[in-house]
């Protein structure tokens, strides 16, 4: 039971931070199906940093882990500018741009991982081995039955995610930038009339979604996959999109959706494991979060209200 909570959280929270990125982008009016590619590219740059600097930092130092998240954010943010440029400047179809960015991310990161491994380490491989993040347990609280599991064997990045998410909420709902960003997704003409650049606000929003996705991708690299490899593209970006649609483009409900996905996933795992049936069944268990997502979307998509200007190309000339 507690394993369900522990594993569930470690999947749900990275998913959540990616969904928050998606919320930023979509609340500004830019459809973002590129989350999958963004998280992969972020994890790639973070992983690249770790393998390139291995040996520089003393054994057991936490500095490379912290810095790798920073680099993942920078990488994801920088890469997302492709999507931003296509959608905001080049007026591309936003769905197609997102798919292009995803396909390109898989190809780019795969190619360069090989190149770096071959060129720097002389061993062509499609993985950056970066290991698993250490876990922490809060003494005392963790002994409480059931609830204690939320404080047991927690990855430090989970705490970081909660802090970042709180800050993101504050920025989106309480600051000037957030007010302008959300206005862009509702009526960009109003923002333009107020003398603010819609393009800049949207560029920023997409870049933030890239940075947050990068952080989320790095979390997966440090936990589920324990490396950077093509395995990082396990569809979390799309799950995050489902979560934000399901959460009606709001942060707290999206967190709920992520938790449901996370716990469903870990619960299915544990059930499959405890029944001690053939390992093949784990494939069935793996499909569970996706089935659940599909069902939830089918039941709860009817009354959804997307941001009014979502996917609309903003035309300054149009009044």
């Amino acid at each position, binding site marked *: 039971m507690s394993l369900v909570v522990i594993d569930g959280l470690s999947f749900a929270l990275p998913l959540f931070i990616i969904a928050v990125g998606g919320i930023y982008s979509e609340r500004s009016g830019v459809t973002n199906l590129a989350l999958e590619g963004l998280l992969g590219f972020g994890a790639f740059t973070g992983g690249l940093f770790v393998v390139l600097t291995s040996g520089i930092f003393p054994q057991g130092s936490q500095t490379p882990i912290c810095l790798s998240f920073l680099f993942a954010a920078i990488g994801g943010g920088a890469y997302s500018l492709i999507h931003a440029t296509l959608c905001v400047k080049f007026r591309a179809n936003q769905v197609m741009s997102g798919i292009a960015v995803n396909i390109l991310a898989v190809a780019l990161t795969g190619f360069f991982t090989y190149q770096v491994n071959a060129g720097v380490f002389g061993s062509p491989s499609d993985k950056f081995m970066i290991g698993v993040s250490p876990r922490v347990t809060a003494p005392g609280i963790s002994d409480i039955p059931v609830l204690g599991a939320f404080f047991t064997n927690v990855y430090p990045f989970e705490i970081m995610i909660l802090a970042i998410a709180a800050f993101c909420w504050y920025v989106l709902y309480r600051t000037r930038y957030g007010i*302008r960003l959300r206005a862009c997704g509702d009526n960009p003409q109003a923002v333009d009339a107020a003398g603010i650049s819609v393009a800049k606000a949207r560029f920023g929003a997409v870049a933030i979604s890239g940075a947050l996705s990068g952080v989320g991708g790095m979390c997966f690299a440090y936990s589920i996959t324990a490396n950077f490899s093509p395995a990082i593209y396990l569809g979390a970006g799309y799950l995050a999109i489902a979560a934000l649609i399901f959460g009606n483009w709001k942060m707290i409900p999206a967190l709920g959706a992520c938790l449901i996905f996370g716990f469903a996933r870990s619960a299915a795992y544990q059930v499959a494991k405890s029944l001690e049936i053939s390992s093949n069944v784990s494939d069935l268990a793996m499909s569970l979060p996706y089935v659940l997502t599909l069902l939830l979307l089918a039941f709860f998509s009817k009354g959804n209200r997307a941001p009014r200007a979502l996917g609309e190309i903003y035309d300054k000339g149009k009044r």
Partner: protein
Amino acid sequence: MSEAIVEMRHITKRFPGIIANDDVSFSIGRGEIFAILGENGAGKSTLMSILFGMYEPDGGEILIRGIPEKISSPARAVELDIGMVHQHFTLVREYTVTENIILGDEPWKRFLGLLPYVDVKGSEAKVSELSARYGLDVDPGRLIEDMDVAGQQRVEILKMLYRDAEILIFDEPTAMLTPAETGMLLKIIENLRDNGKTVILISHKLREIKRVADRCAILNRGKLIDILDVPGTDTARMAHMMVGRDVPIDGRSTEARAPAADFGDTVLSVDGLAVYGADGTMAVNDVSFTVRRGEIFAIAGVSGNGQTEIADAVAGLAEVQSGRISLNGDDISRSSVRARIGKGIAYIPEDRQNVGLILDFPLGDNLALKKYRTPPFAGGAMLNRDAFDAYAGRLIDEYDIRGAGCGRAAVRGMSGGNQQKAIIAREIELGADLIIFVQPTRGLDIGAMEQVRCMMSAERGKGKAILLISYDLDEILMCADTVAVIYGGEFLRVSPVESISVDEIGRYMMGVTEG
């Protein structure tokens, strides 16, 4: 006139093939209400767009407070304390009044002296104070999506005042308002002047200009005809100068009307209709009426009171919650859109670009949009493309539709007037017994407007039943035989148009039933 606050000298603005403003010069004094009068397409809006920095003039100069200024953007105009209320409001619908007003210039405080945050509460006080000073009566905490058109317009005015604008431009501000709301707006405009603001009022409605304006510039086809002192000029003269010929001042048409007894059989009969709106609330409640052959039955009302839902319900685009709709005696309440088209309903929708047309389709395909399945356009499962071309060619000639060559070009590139003509041509050619017109002349220039009204009246003459929905009271008075006034989804009054006064209609439009 006091000292000039705005001077426009020899302003010329050309678009390819047309001169929108031709050497226009005038100056506006501080603290006056200056009207710019002209028909649609006379160049009023272009002229003011230049003043507000949305276009650059090809020639001439602008002086603000005596200093030559190059107004390159609306932002620059705002810096010069110029504000503008456009016809299409630029409001964030999910935000409150205050949030909309402070957008772009948000005051902030620090939480615990650290985290900066936007001070919405503090701004609300300032908005309240402004609202009270100019008699605007706006609740700063309300959501825009919960407000009516007149309320939203007052928010736009507050937006200008919040930015300390001194020169306020209003672009056709009364187009969507009821007579009472218009009266209130004109009072606000006078209030603004009395508080030292300079107001520029773009309008083609003489009555309003006569009521509030101090001076008035008259434009015709881009040229400045004259500048008049409004109190000393009679409206007939102004109208003559605006149009270039004599026009009846009273909106009511002089053409003889068929008396009620001459209407033919009932075509459309609506009985106890109830429809839910898009937001799930009751939009139309227990509405009953009939439209007979040769009758133009008009529904008057402020936009958003259930008119669109009635039209959609009759056409089959909105679900009938309860009640009965019958066409020529057949119950069609549950019929599909296609079945209703087949039975004889034509529909010119309000949103012509998003509903009435497929902008990326060629004109020919749009003209055949309701006929493509039947011969000669289709034989079995396949289309006969030649028939599309021939049909387009015929309608382009007959209805004078321009801008799409022989029908192969997309309608996106056509002007609004021609798009509307294409829709009307398509619908009339259906030969339906009932034609629904919703806002048929909105945004059209005066030539196209006349053409559209002629077409409508010709169909009436052919014995069609016509359901006209318009927010423009003048249009209803001009065209309708019978008028129903809708408020909050209910008919407050149905009457032959000759036995109801403008004031009465106006009162009902505001939901006032007694006195």
